[in-house]
């Protein structure tokens, strides 16, 4: 449900709840922190490129965390990187969202047992909104993850973040 299929009163006037308008604005331009970690990043880049065209959902990469709304954790989170991810997350302005992409960032993936250097799930350092399974997830799966995130934002309330649908 977008804003534009809401009631039109006169001419160019749209009547909507302020909350809906705000959520619609947010979910329609999720700028992601330009940031890739491992093999999953290749699929994320493919999703951003013309064939899958992330841009049609208003997603585009921003090189600075200060200008980003979301991080897609696309790949293996090493312990060394985890401290940096945490800092990047803290540098982002609210509201901020995290998509965890692929088995590695969901739970350690192929490194779950012998990966002495791998954090077994990025949710040990930052809160995750949507988990996308796969190794690597196809671009379609990432798009589905994005749609899930949009759904989540659509149901947010001004009074309370992350209201249930």
């Amino acid at each position, binding site marked *: 449900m977008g804003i534009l299929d809401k009631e039109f009163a006169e001419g160019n006037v749209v009547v909507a709840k302020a909350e809906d308008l705000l959520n619609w604005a947010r979910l329609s331009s999720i700028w992601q922190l330009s940031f890739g970690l491992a093999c999953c990043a290749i699929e994320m880049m493919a999703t951003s490129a013309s064939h899958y065209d992330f841009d049609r959902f208003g997603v585009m990469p921003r090189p600075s965390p200060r200008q980003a709304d979301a991080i897609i954790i696309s790949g293996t989170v090493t*312990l*060394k990187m*985890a*401290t940096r991810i945490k800092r990047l997350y803290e540098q982002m302005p609210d509201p901020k969202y995290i998509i965890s992409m692929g088995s590695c960032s969901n*739970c*350690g993936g192929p490194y*779950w*047992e012998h990966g*002495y*250097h791998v*954090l*077994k799930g990025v949710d*040990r*350092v930052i809160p995750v909104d949507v988990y996308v399974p796969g190794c690597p997830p196809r671009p379609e799966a990432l798009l589905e993850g994005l749609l899930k995130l949009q759904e989540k934002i659509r149901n947010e309330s001004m009074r309370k973040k992350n209201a249930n649908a």
Partner: protein
Amino acid sequence: MRTPEEIYEMLKNQFSDSILEFESELPVEKFINVSPSQIHSVSKYLKDHLDLQFDCLMCLSGTDDNNDEKTTDEDGNETVVPGTLSVYYNLHSIKYNHKVNLRVKVQKDKPEVESVENIWKTANWHEREAFDMIGIKFLNHPDLRRILMPEDWEEGSHPLRKDYENPEFYQGMKVPY
């Protein structure tokens, strides 16, 4: 172009006692065992000799030979005799298109090997990796720091050692699954 056997003979004539043996029975590439304190002069010879000219260090790897000896006495006490660590050098001469492999074996309780960094610059990072992962100390290396693991990783903890145990926490993050 020279075969490893010929190169071994040349080395044997030049450095009789520091060239230990020639391993040719293993089902892998043949290699020459060199004593740890001589690896630098042997490498220099291999690089500078006009008929050899090993100008390319293709790879340098550290390994744990997995030969600790564990003995348990009657009371059930375990004693471990530490085994050895090795460094392998894979050399190639671009000019003559011949290859040779060297190996240096050191005791785990004193893992010190001469650095070859000032012969082949490639060795700089490779030696740092062998130090980081296996814990081999390269003497005279200009900058022997960890290269892959975080800088503040526990001192003396080298993840590719066979007896390595992962810490429970790193900077407050739980490490095991």
